[in-house]
């Protein structure tokens, strides 16, 4: 199976926020988490992930800092801000409504 479309138009922010809700993570960890949590159905392109992270950081949803990992490697770690948490809830609600609506349409036609 080929790669899924890039994180399902517009849902990348939701996925990233959701992953970070579990705790701070760097870019590679976020991408891996999404891939594994979706059983490799969703794979995030790096070309989309990193710009999105920067954008969300500027929007005040995330905060980032450089940190040294246990394997002694410098990584840029992102964590959710209070605003990010609020956004996660909003996005989750919105997504659920969209998914429900889409499901209803698919069933009825």
């Amino acid at each position: 199976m080929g790669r899924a479309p890039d994180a399902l138009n517009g849902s990348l922010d939701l996925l990233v926020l959701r992953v970070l809700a579990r705790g701070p993570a760097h870019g590679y960890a976020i991408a891996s988490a999404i891939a594994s949590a979706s059983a490799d159905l969703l794979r995030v392109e790096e070309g989309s992930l990193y710009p999105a992270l920067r954008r969300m950081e500027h929007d005040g949803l995330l905060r980032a800092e450089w940190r040294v990992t246990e394997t002694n490697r410098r990584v840029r770690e992102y964590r959710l801000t209070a605003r990010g948490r609020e956004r996660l809830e909003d996005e989750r609600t919105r997504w659920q409504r969209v998914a429900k609506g889409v499901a209803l349409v698919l069933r009825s036609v």
Partner: protein
Amino acid sequence: MGYFSRLLRSLRPDARDRDHRDEVASHIEERAEALIQQGLAPDAARAEARSHFGREIRVRERMREADGLPWVDRLGSDVEHLWRSLRRDALSTVAITGSLAVGVGVTVGLFFLAHSLLYRPLPVPAPDELVALRSVEGENPVPLLAPMVQRIRDERIFDAVCGLLTLSATVQIDERMSPVAVHPMTGDCFAPMGVGAAVGRLLTDDDGQEGRPHVALLTWEAWHREFAGRPDVLQQTVNVDGTRYQIVGVTARGFTGYAVGQPAQLFIPFGNFADGLRAYFPPPDLQVMEVIARRRSGDAFAAVAARVVDRWSAWLDGTVSPRLQDGAKRQYLQRRVSVMPGSTGLPVAFRDRLGRPAVALLMVAVVMLGMGCLNAANLLLARSAGRRREAAVRAAMGASTRQLVREAIVENLPILLGVLAGASVVAITLVQVLTERYQQSSPAFGLSSELDQPVVVFAVSVTLLAWVLVLALPAWRTSRVEVGSDLTSPRVVGGSQRTRYALVAAQVGLTVVLLVVGTFFATQLRSLYQREPGFITDRLWVAQLSARPGGYDGAFDSGAHYRDLVERVTMGGQVASAALIRTPPFQAQSWVVPVGQAGRAEDVPLSQAFVTDGFFETLRLPVVAGHDFARIDQPRNRHVAILSQDAARMVFGDAPAVGRFIRVGSAPVNQQVEVIGVVADAILGLPQQGTTPVVYLSFWQYGAAVQTYPSLVVRGLDSRPPDRQAVHAAVDASGREYVSVWRAMDNRRDAALVNEYLLASLSGVFGVLALLLATLGLYGLLRLLVVERAAEFGVRVALGATAGRIARMVAGQTVLIVGAGAVAGVVTAGLLNAGLSTVLGTPVSMSAAHVGVAMVLMMAAALAASAGPVRRASSVNPLEQIRRE
């Protein structure tokens, strides 16, 4: 918040890029680590991680877009690009900017002057309805007689008729006194002509009726300069030569009278003068006036002119003065009328004198601007030819055409901005310098500094031309970059080589012409300066004296007054010597009189100068025979004269003159004048005219008509100039006069040579500038030639041609272009002699010496221009060129 944090990131691009690079690197390493743990070899794991990541540059570019403000980033990269290109091409950037700035600036400045003097419409409604009227006697234009104004008004051909004259009167405002251009007016000079009032009321014809109060009208500029725009100006008076005039109004802003170039300050009615001022004028029926009229809207100019011509003899008959003798009356009645469009003001000779050289120089400046533009184009083409490979490489790497065009525009933006700023400075400075120079010779000179529509349109058009050249040309060429051909060949396609050669040769020709002209005027000026005046100008100063208001009243005894004055000035020991003269040296001496031996019919024209005793000593003008005048000379004694050596020779031949008698002019008292001395020849009039034969008459033997408004010539002690304060105090002490102008004799000579100075300096500047432009043009062309033919040179070298041979090929081209241009230039300069004499109204005769100087300069410039390209051509690397092919 997001905006500001983005802005901060954009402002620190290096830190941001490092951050991105590190984050991407850490991502790849993390993935590689994971792959190693899955069992892949480290190298393979890293390669796989890298390949999985995709195009790293593209990802980082997108990160940059999200992590900053794109417009700030673009600006930053533009500035960086700009800085890089400026550093690389600083010399040609400065050259292009400088030549265009000077070209545009000089052109706009001269256009402003020529337009202001000759073509700018007067600031009144419908100026094209104005008509200037004059009469013509023989070939000479003559103003109309004052009574003619009323006569023309009565005919009702015009809506308004205005008569004006100009006089320099001493005007006292508060405690300050100065000679001011006062314009007595009659008829309908203001409201009916469409002139508005800014404050109070305007003058009408009724104000000139006998018995009416003395009232004056200020111009807006004079109100602001003399009264600082005070609102209580209508409560103020001005003292015009002893008569107090109540200010009743101020004209609308921008209106400075009808004589362009000589802005009016004060208008008074012509007619009801008090006695003091009346003495200025001849009887009213002999007073001449400039006349300007407004034709009825709807009447065609030709029809109005025909009606004037039709009525002209009746007007002449009705205005001929009974005071005129038969001959003069006949001459008056033979005058013809001249009806001219008056939209640009009165046709005063002054305007032509300054305006025509300005037009001539403007034409030269336009040619020069054209040369500057051609050069800029050539240099820019050469530059863009050199850069096409770079642009092609960038295009191949993914830069869009839009980006390349933007960069080309950005790259040339400093040139445009530099041209705009430089041209403004050049234009303003030029106008200021020329205005100040002209004011030195004609203190009344002035021009409105307001920019009207044609000036703005001209300035904008010229600047746009520069813009199109500077920005559009390179941008257009960059937009036509072709990756394939431009990467494989550096050749520039398009543009006929022969045309470019011809253009540069034409530039060389024009430069030679300008250099010849510049050299001619410079040598002419130098020879005028080197001409010995016959007296020593060092430490010699001239104080021109004017009457205080009422200073020359009925009780004024001029003889006694001036004896006292000379005593006071010389007595204090502050000056070496002092004397009076009616018209000081280096000024047009208009008094030429027929002089002959007493009792004989034949006579010769001599300049007549009225001087006091001590004049020759003050000037250090040697008395070669006889003696000086004496202070005790009286009008009633036998009149005495001193002749210059030339004059003595003209009147008496080789026979001694002292002790003999001459007649001077037709006055009865001057029919038996004793020659008491002979002095060395001197330049008493304009320096251009050289020494003239002079008959000096004793100042003391003539009345107030000759003596008033004299000049005091003063020589300082030792090496110091005369003490200005002491001279002023001595003049002020009488309470009748004041020093209106205080000037060094050398300075007077400079002022008298102002036209020559301007022609020499401007044509000199133009010549040097043209030389610079031609050098740049030649350099641009040769550089382009070397770029275009680099491959050919490479092949030639590979086939055995020496560097010297290649250098000779380029040098040969230079000789061809410069030679052709120079020949054309010399021929044109030869043809120009007559033309220039006509345009400038001064004899021009350019000789082989002038041509020689021009050629030497041109050759030196050609050598300088070709040195770089010749060196570059001779150092072509054949291998590199062939590889490119």
